[in-house]
């Protein structure tokens, strides 16, 4: 679970470094999706860590404690549920993983923007964030393929 907190720190440092220029992709959320996929049968401890990580992010950046933690907890629940329903053969499909990660990231980033009516538009930091997130998801999908392959071997 240390990797989840490490991703939170990495995102925080990137956000500080890029502050005022662009939004960094939500690395913590991507890590939550990753962990939910691999722990879809027993996600109990992940709920608590996701809640803690979200709350810390809210206290540091958003100013609305509970907003990100709710999104993270919901992400764990939905991803773990969807993945546990899937037949074992389908779980190895990297396209499904890519779709799941990118959709989750897009939804959790776009909803607050719609809510505040800010940051919409292709030239906005939101579009840059989504572009960088797609690159991260592609990297994560490559890791997923490798993980699944080594799992089968």
């Amino acid at each position, binding site marked *: 679970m240390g990797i989840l907190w490490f991703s939170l720190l990495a995102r925080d440092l990137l956000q500080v470094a890029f502050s005022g220029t662009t939004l960094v992709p939500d690395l913590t959320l991507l890590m939550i999706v990753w962990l939910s996929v691999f722990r879809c049968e027993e996600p109990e401890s992940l709920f608590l860590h996701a809640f803690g990580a979200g709350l810390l992010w809210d206290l540091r950046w958003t100013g609305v404690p509970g907003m990100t933690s709710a999104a993270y907890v919901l992400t764990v629940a939905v991803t773990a549920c969807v993945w546990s329903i899937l037949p074992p053969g389908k779980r190895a499909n990297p396209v499904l993983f890519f779709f799941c990660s990118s959709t989750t990231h897009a939804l959790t980033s776009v909803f607050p923007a719609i809510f*505040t009516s800010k940051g919409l538009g292709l030239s906005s930091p939101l579009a840059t964030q989504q572009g960088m997130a797609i690159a991260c998801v592609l990297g994560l999908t490559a890791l997923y393929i490798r993980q699944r392959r080594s799992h089968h071997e």
Partner: protein
Amino acid sequence: MGRTGTKRWIVFLGTLSLSLLLAAVAPGSLPAEKAMDLVERVMAVPEWPARMVRSLVVKTLDLVAGERALRERIDRLEQENLALRGLLQTTVNYGSWAGAGEGHVTLRPPTSWWSEIRIDKGSREGIRPGMAVVQEGALVGKVSRVESNFSWAELVTSSSLYIPVVVDETRDLGVLNGDGNGLVFLLYSPVEKDLKPGMSVSTALVSELLPPGIPIGRIAGAGEEIGGYRLYRITLKADLSRLYKVKVMTGGRS
């Protein structure tokens, strides 16, 4: 549903309800603000390398583009401009407004979006309550609370901030006040005064910390008449939707 399933539901619903409860209750509350300040203080330690990298990159880019020299020149001209505006308005000697500490906006709570911001500069950098906060020379707000390494500023759009101002073209005095929702109005202007859209508004002689002559914006149009006074809507010169970096005007009469 097995025991594991039940435990899973309890943990899920527990964490989700707690999150939603916090989101509903915490924003704007004193404990939440204290917690945010504490997290800011704690995270300042691991974030230090990132801040250094950012600062280094910015400085390097400035040097390469020669922007640094231009900025210093603009700062000098701004200070000169302020001093001249002050002389035009009053004969009181306000000394030099030499300092203008640049700070980054580290927090802008959505619940008080048009009311306050947090800046990463505090009393260590010589910031005191009441000092003017500007963005590219235009007034953004006033420092309201100061801690050792950060401070909070109340924005001009806040409904609780009243700033005495002057209409530059007519020298008419009035008071600027926000509605807390992004709009700013000029109050207490007698109806017989015919103020035109486009006339510029700047700070009047207010306090020892807020210098006169800081540009604020322009009159956008006349509003309703209340008790012999007409309300005027003001378009701000500063872009509050792109508030990333600000300057705090330190210095002034001690």
